[in-house]
């Protein structure tokens, strides 16, 4: 009975979704020129950033990004709170993944390469595909690999907390600096330089690097918390 109602509900939802989106191929949007042309234009002419997505994420819609790293921060904090226990033994692993020597040696070899790739991705976020989120998550997967391969591999919780907090604080402080120098929060107040240089785009690469550090620290901490959850 319940399934029947749900299927009926899904049929209605599906009809409306198909109705709203499938027509787009035929008729197209009612407003031809949205905000995207402006973004594509200004990214080259004013911000001197090659990657339009980076310029949107960090500059045009930078406030969203600030909110988003906050969501991640809150999720990491919430995870610690939900799984919190008073008698907390540090270093105790709830889930052990037994691994062979080949996996261990391989992980040790791969780990620096993965971290290096992540760093490359977020430093070059304004020039090529990638950026803070992508680089940060790549670094977190590197730490994840080490955590899975070695039972005794551990990350200092305090160091993660420091990186996370300082990256967040500097993000907001850059926003205030923009307010002080240019009048609005998160304004790009540094000289933009020439396009396709590593040092171009004003504060965009700096902010994205901070986002990268923050995301990497938060995701690593999140995985670490879940992995060290022990049934009492």
């Amino acid at each position, binding site marked *: 009975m319940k399934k029947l109602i749900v299927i009926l509900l899904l049929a209605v939802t599906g009809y*409306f979704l198909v109705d709203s989106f499938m027509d787009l191929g035929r008729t197209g*949007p*009612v407003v*031809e020129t949205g905000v995207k042309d402006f973004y594509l234009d200004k990214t080259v002419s004013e911000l001197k950033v090659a990657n339009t997505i980076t310029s949107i994420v960090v500059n045009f819609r930078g406030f969203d990004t600030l909110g988003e790293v906050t969501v991640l921060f809150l999720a990491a904090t919430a995870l610690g709170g939900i799984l919190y226990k008073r008698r907390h033994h540090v270093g105790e692993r709830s889930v052990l993944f037994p691994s062979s020597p080949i996996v261990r040696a391989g992980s040790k070899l791969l780990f620096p390469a993965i971290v290096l790739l992540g760093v490359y991705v977020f430093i070059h976020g304004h020039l090529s595909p990638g950026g803070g989120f992508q680089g940060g998550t790549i670094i977190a997967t590197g730490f994840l690999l080490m955590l899975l391969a070695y039972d005794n591999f551990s990350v200092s919780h305090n160091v993660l907390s420091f990186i996370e907090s300082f990256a967040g604080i500097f993000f907001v402080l850059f926003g205030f600096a923009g307010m002080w120098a240019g009048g*609005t929060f998160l304004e790009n107040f540094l000289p933009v330089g020439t396009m396709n240089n590593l040092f171009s785009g004003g504060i965009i690469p700096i902010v994205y690097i901070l986002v990268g550090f923050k995301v990497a620290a938060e995701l690593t901490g999140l995985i670490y918390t879940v992995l060290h959850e022990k049934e009492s």
Partner: protein
Amino acid sequence: MVGSPVLLIAIPLLAAFMIPLLGMIWKELVRIIPGLVLAFMMISSASMLMYVTNNGTIIQTLAGWEAPWGINLVFSPLTAFLATLMTFMGFIVWLYSYRFKRNVDFEPAKKYFIFLMMLVAGAVGIVITGDIFNQFVFIEITGISAYALTAFYTGRNSAEASFKYLLMGALSSSALLIAIAIIYSQLGTLNMADIASKIHLMPAGYKVTALIFFMMGIGIEAEIFPLNGWAPDAYTEAPGPIGAAFAGIVVKAGVYAMVRMVFTLFDVSGAMDILLTIGLITLIVAETAAIRQEKLKRMLAYSSIGQMGLVFVAFGIGTLEGVYAALFLMLNHAIIKPLLFLSGSQLVFNSKEKLIKEVNGLGKYMPFTAVLFALGSFAIVGLPPFAGFWSKLSVLTAAANEGMLLIIALILIVSVIEIVYYFRVVNRIYFFDKAEDLIPQKPRVNAVIAMSVLGAIILIIGFNPDVVSTVLHNASADLMDTPQYIKNVLSAGQSLTN
């Protein structure tokens, strides 16, 4: 003007990132800093409310890009009123729970205060932002804080209440994203004012679909009828002050987002009737459920849902008077319901089950708390001369001017139901004998201050409702005036050529 609207978001975020570091230096800081931040938010938004009343709307652009392209914050009379109300309530809740978990556990206390602060900041963000995707991000911030606070106690039911809340929240945020996708695919913009100015180009069918998905996305926070299954459980299982914060802060943000959609963004003709119908169904279902409850907080939660239904009915009347009445109701509900939650959680502090019958005879042992609870009960059912009377009266007048007699009758019948279940509790407090084994809890000083401030406000509004009428009139005029909203936001942007 003191400060700028962006500080209302940026300062709490900065503080949230700093608290883990500061907590390593001195543990007391994790309690003090959120209080200072909330006090700053309250003072700043109150002074900006003053400025806005005299000088008109503040539009704050972010990252140096004007309205349709960048994100902007709108601090109009309406949003200023709601932001002030929310930050004030946040401060009261902080004051009430200042000694929370003191000397017991450092880690949970730290998390509690971070989440409380972010709950307020997220709700303020929902209200003052002028961009639908930004609003989605703030809804998620508020949501994750609320899930974590609901699951705060380690008992078995709190995780379940939180999971229920999270499940509904995740589904509704999916609906919100779909609605954003529909809007963006048709209009190519995410700015609220820009959408409002272009919405008439959109085919009517898509408009209705998008509006329904929006309502599904936001209705969870606004506690409208089919989406409020989480509310009684979350209110019951969360720590006492958090119930007050949900009723006073989160719900108000949800209601604002919803009426902003209906009044400003969409020009769908039947939307007012939808609001009215939803409100009536919510009102009747919740009030009839409230009378059957045995736990005090559950009863208060259902009563809260019912009040939100009444607010939607008032908005659904659709006239300026109706909006005024709805905003007045929101103000009163935001003050009275937290008082009931705070004093109610004091009354059942030491009982295991938190049942209504466990408050028997506490009037003699906890006179102050009991008086405040009785005051809140009288005020919320709408007895003169307390605050709730004036708001209910204005709803009835607004409905009468439109000739909606059926609605007036329904509201009066529901008020009778409210009187029955609130007076049942008050009766038990004063005229029953106390159970032998129950130890009354003496409220702490900070709790007493927090509750008496709320009680004083109820009396002030009750005896002199004119103190808030200017602010409310400005706010309701602001909500009705869509062209002015569009002009305010876009006027700077239009002159920029791209």
